[in-house]
């Protein structure tokens, strides 16, 4: 668990470095997905990144055997979670990757504030769900 977390994190960090080094772009997934869907005319590379993002797990499954996680969320969690994640990442200009990895690494105070904020509200949300559900 510890070794795979670190190894996975290293891959994410290396991918973020390579995207900036070779293409000059920040690996912020919410923005990349937004561009791939809504602004493809201007940033067509975003779609190939998104395709890669799906191919990566397939590659791991091919090497390691398939190990799909169990998705047993309630459908209200899926719908509400998706809506808030989409809305919040657009309003706050980033998500876990853009703010949490790239932004913090760039030394952006904005990203440090954003990351602390979504960590805190995430913890509070899970705490409340634990009390209520």
């Amino acid at each position, binding site marked *: 668990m*510890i070794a*795979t977390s670190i190894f*996975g*994190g*290293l891959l*994410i*960090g*290396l*991918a973020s*470095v390579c995207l*900036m*080094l070779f293409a*000059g772009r920040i690996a912020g*997934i*919410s923005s990349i*997905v937004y561009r791939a869907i809504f602004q493809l005319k201007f940033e067509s590379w*975003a779609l*190939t*990144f998104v395709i*890669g*993002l799906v*191919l*990566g*797990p397939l590659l*791991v*499954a091919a090497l390691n055997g398939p190990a799909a*996680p*169990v*998705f047993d969320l309630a459908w209200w*969690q*899926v*719908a*509400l*979670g998706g*809506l*808030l*994640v*989409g*809305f*919040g*990442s657009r*309003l*706050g200009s980033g*998500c876990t*990757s853009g703010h949490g990895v790239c932004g*913090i*690494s760039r*030394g*952006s*105070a*904005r990203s440090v504030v954003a990351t602390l904020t*979504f960590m805190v*509200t*995430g*913890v509070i*949300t*899970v*705490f409340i*769900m*634990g009390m209520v559900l």
Partner: protein
Amino acid sequence: MMIYLTALATGAMFGAGLVVSGMTDPANIQGFLDVTGAWRPHLALVMIAAIAVALPFFQWVLPRLSKPVYGASFLAPLSTAIDQRLVLGAAIFGIGWGVSGLCPGPAIAGIAYLEPQIFGFLAAMLIGMRLADRLLSPSAKA
């Protein structure tokens, strides 16, 4: 052409990292956020490891480079304002992250599992993005 190959390869590396690290499992994310319950702290290592690789590059290597290997220039966010919009957006994002245990990267990577809940999440996420656009336009566009 090379920028597309770069995007494909880095996307694949990123997606592999998400799976290997356990980020694509909502139970892991919610376990990580459940600090007062059955806390699973190991996902913090994912972020620390990613930053350990990216921070030295962004701090010490990138400033010495004039342009990317393929492409005209390095593009980075210009805004430095810590405003209501940033904090409110991040706060809302965190609530959605906690509710579902999913964020944009793992949700896209999760397409590989052909899991109906992933597609439902992505559809809701795109609607949420568009709602934010509607709220923000035409005054402020990111």
